[in-house]
């Protein structure tokens, strides 16, 4: 039975690993040179590990089924030294050198200068994203999404507002922690158009599981358009429902935590909602941005995302709630 399991195990290995090749959050589904380099390293290591495992198990099986007379190799210390000492040292030396060359490749002097910088702060439990101008001043602030121009090197400054978080977009790069008191910088270069999911990778309390974001790579012209739109203030509502929604937003204290540029709402505690309708998700990757999800979120965010810092607003009902959600959805 044991041998049978081993065999199946060995057969299952490559198939199962192949399946992992896909998925919006798989590091093996590479969208950048860096992620691709790591993916190649991974595949080579998987293959080598598979071979070594099979060899060791085969050897153990052969040893256990050895004929009555002792195989001569077994009794010699030299053999143990060769297989257990010399072989690993040779293999590991090669692997170490290769791994180090990948480690060193990312941040050397050869890489192009960054096109621009983005400051990302991890907060319990969402991502505050601020695009910075050449002088380091904030251009605009958004939440839970990054957009990048294809092929340009962007540097992301990672900080934390409370506890340790970790910024991880598997499709583009390895993770880097966000630690209070530290600024860590992660260079990102998206190699092709696409959208990748990222998620907090360091346990950060309560709703750690519900702290995701998206990164979208756009062709340069599209990206420029997006930047310009983001920098603009919120559009004036063009219908009665929208105006009612905005009035409710401003009258109910929402502006204490949220900013909507172009209105008196200028809170900085929660996400900037100036263009919330244009973001793919609300609640840090929790739900798609739609009128219905916005309404559900406003009434009782803690039900959707336990321990969330936003208080519930059961005061909004019926028409009021619809108007508020409609206005927020219109902020594209």
């Amino acid at each position, binding site marked *: 039975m044991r041998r049978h399991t081993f065999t199946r195990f060995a057969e299952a290995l490559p198939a199962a690993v192949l399946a992992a090749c896909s998925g919006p959050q798989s590091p093996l589904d590479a969208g950048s040179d860096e992620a691709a380099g790591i993916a190649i390293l991974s595949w080579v290591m998987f293959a080598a590990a598979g071979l070594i495992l099979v060899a060791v198990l085969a050897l153990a099986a052969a040893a256990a089924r050895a004929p009555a007379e002792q195989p001569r190799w077994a009794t010699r210390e030299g053999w143990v030294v060769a297989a257990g000492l010399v072989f690993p*040292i040779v293999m*590991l*030396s090669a692997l*170490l*050198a290769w791994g*180090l*060359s990948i*480690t*060193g490749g990312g*941040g*050397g*002097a050869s890489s192009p200068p960054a096109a621009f910088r983005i400051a990302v702060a991890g907060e319990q439990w969402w991502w505050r994203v601020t695009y910075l101008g050449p002088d380091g001043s904030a251009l605009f602030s958004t939440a839970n999404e990054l957009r990048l121009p294809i092929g340009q090197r962007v540097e992301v400054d990672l900080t934390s507002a409370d506890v340790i978080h970790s910024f991880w977009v598997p499709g583009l790069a390895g993770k880097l922690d966000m630690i209070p008191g530290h600024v860590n*910088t992660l260079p990102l270069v998206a190699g092709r158009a696409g959208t990748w999911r990222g998620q907090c990778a360091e346990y950060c309390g309560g709703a750690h599981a519900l702290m995701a974001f998206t990164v979208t790579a756009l062709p340069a012209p599209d990206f420029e358009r997006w930047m310009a739109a983001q920098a603009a203030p919120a559009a004036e509502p063009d219908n009665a429902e929208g105006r009612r929604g905005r009035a409710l937003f401003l009258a109910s204290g929402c502006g204490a935590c949220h900013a909507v540029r172009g209105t008196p709402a200028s809170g900085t505690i929660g996400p900037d909602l100036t263009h919330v309708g244009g973001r793919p998700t609300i609640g840090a990757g929790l739900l798609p941005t739609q009128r219905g999800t916005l309404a559900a979120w406003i009434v009782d965010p803690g039900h959707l995302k336990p321990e969330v810092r936003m208080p519930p607003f059961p005061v909004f009902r019926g028409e009021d709630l619809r108007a508020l959600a409609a206005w927020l959805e219109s902020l594209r």
Partner: protein
Amino acid sequence: MAETDRRFFSGLLRIGAGPALWAAHLGLVYGVTAVACARGAGGVAAPTVVGLTLAAALGAGWIVGRELRRARAGPAGTRTSFFAAALAGLSLVAILWAGLPVVFVSACP
């Protein structure tokens, strides 16, 4: 201290010499890099690491040689010599590995 205890501690020192050298090397290269990068003196790190690695590797190699000679010299304490030489040999590999990154990786971001 009894004679037998003295032998115990001298043996301990011989066996521990290689790994101690490795530990000191690792601690030093890590400390030098950490302080150099924190104080914006990244240029100092790489040459220091190279120097430390060469010195530590020479030290470990010397221990290996000395213990092997001792082992050949006589049967008494062969076991101690074996352990001391083998651990120093392994430490030598570990020291060289720890020094290897300087070739590939720049000191500070």
